[in-house]
């Protein structure tokens, strides 16, 4: 099986955008074709990561629409929906399409248009992924975060402030990301005094609602050499599920999908947690950064909060996490997020991250759908 390379990357401005989903996807797709130096008619497979364009906007069939808008017809196309992890599920499918020999040039574009809905409406679209026994109780994804955060703090005797420090760190990183929704630092006091959303979590423990799109170009390594001197390799990718009904998990502070998917990605790549130089984690809620950093094997269970307290995960720390600003400050356009995580790692490995640049040869992304219901872990490395 030939190595799969990434030869181009792009993302639109994240935030409140006037563009609708088709326009956002086309903007990122066009920029990625330009970045990779690939002609539209060279694209053989075109995947679109998107959770809910029908529910948000009444626009379905977006992959075919994008193929036409990019003049990539007759490329094979499909929509990849795995809720919040649709983006990395797209990475998985794009990798498969090239690794299997089905496609010599695969464009992946993830995107979502959300901000035209009220917070309550957007929260409900996302909560519609829950089981009927959860949905009828008014359970939302933020409420799962509140339930889990309280148990985590209680079980591991972690201070509430440590969660706030995740928000402070990621906002600080976002200041240097011109594509981020928020390019503004917040202090710990602001986080800890912001309005309660799901006790003990407050407004600044949550990512915003966002419009945006991001894209990546995949091809076999032999083809990559025709287009670029420097490119990135997909070293490992793994995907797994956990229970649909969240309360049925024996230990709510462990995300089994993170454990399983990262085990697969580590095995495929030959790398382990100690080999990762930089990581983008799914900090839709601050508590998720602790859970993932532990379940990926970066830190012992119950000790992820200490790493944040000690600055280990700062941009200049031993293991920088969310140099892009994370979902927390960059924003979380559902289907785009996993793609945008890989765009950040791609730029870090290519030395194109500007003021956010860290010293990295191997990077990891972890993209979480639902409340850990579906998880994809991806490991990328410099060619």
């Amino acid at each position: 099986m030939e190595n799969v390379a990434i030869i181009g990357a792009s993302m639109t401005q994240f935030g409140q955008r006037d563009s609708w989903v088709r326009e956002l996807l086309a903007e990122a797709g066009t920029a990625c074709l330009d970045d990779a130096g690939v002609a539209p008619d060279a694209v053989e497979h075109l995947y679109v990561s998107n959770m809910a364009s029908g529910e948000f906007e009444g626009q379905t069939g977006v992959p075919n629409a994008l193929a036409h808008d990019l003049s990539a017809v007759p490329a094979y196309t499909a929509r990849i929906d795995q809720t919040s992890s649709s983006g990395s599920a797209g990475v998985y499918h794009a990798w498969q399409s090239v690794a299997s020999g089905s496609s010599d040039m695969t464009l992946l574009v993830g995107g979502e248009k959300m901000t035209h809905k009220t917070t309550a409406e957007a929260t409900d679209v996302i909560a519609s992924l829950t089981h009927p026994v959860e949905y009828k109780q008014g359970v939302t994804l933020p409420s799962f975060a509140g339930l889990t955060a309280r148990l985590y703090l209680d079980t591991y005797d972690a201070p509430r402030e440590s969660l706030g420090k995740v928000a402070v760190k990621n906002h600080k990183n976002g200041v240097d990301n011109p594509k981020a929704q928020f390019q503004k630092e917040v202090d710990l006091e602001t986080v800890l005094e912001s309005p309660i959303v799901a006790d003990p979590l407050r407004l600044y423990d949550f990512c915003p609602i966002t419009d945006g799109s991001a894209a990546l170009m995949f091809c076999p390594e032999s083809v990559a050499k025709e287009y670029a001197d420097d490119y990135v390799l997909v070293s490992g990718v793994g995907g797994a599920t956990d229970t649909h009904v969240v309360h049925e998990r024996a230990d709510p502070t462990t995300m089994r999908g993170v454990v399983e998917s990262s085990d697969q990605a580590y095995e495929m790549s030959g790398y382990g947690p100690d080999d990762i130089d930089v990581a983008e984690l799914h900090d839709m809620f601050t508590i998720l950064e602790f859970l993932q950093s532990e379940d990926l094997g970066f830190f012992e269970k119950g000790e992820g909060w200490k790493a944040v307290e000690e600055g280990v995960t700062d941009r200049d720390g031993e293991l920088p996490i969310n140099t892009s600003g994370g979902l927390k400050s960059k924003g979380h356009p559902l289907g785009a997020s996993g793609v945008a995580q890989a765009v950040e790692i791609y730029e870090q490995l290519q030395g194109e991250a500007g003021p956010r640049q860290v010293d990295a040869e191997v990077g990891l992304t972890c993209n979480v759908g639902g409340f850990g219901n579906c998880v994809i872990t991806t490991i990328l490395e410099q060619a």
Partner: protein
Amino acid sequence: MEAYRYSDGSITYPGHDIGPDGSEPVDTVDLSEYTAEVVTWTRSTATPPGVRAPNTLAIVEFDVDGEPVRAIGQVTTEEIEIGDKIRPVYVDELREPGAGIREPESQEWDGYRFEPV
């Protein structure tokens, strides 16, 4: 509040066509006849259309003759503590059907809230 018991003795709420280790459902258990202990809880203030605000929710664990089974539900009070004992109390409409995105006919809307004992 119907839970399924499987051939290996395990119980889940809600029930599934196939049990946790692949065993078949053999019986049902009405959890509303039991009390439970609060595992964790939250008070959600940003609630979707048709949901009360604030919406205090708890994950609780029932002990059904030595077999643990967990459930999630609304709490009758705004605050509660980990370890508190609760009992389920019936409510004919937990949230307003049709106010949110889900098709009203696709599921039931009655159920149980948890009341501190």
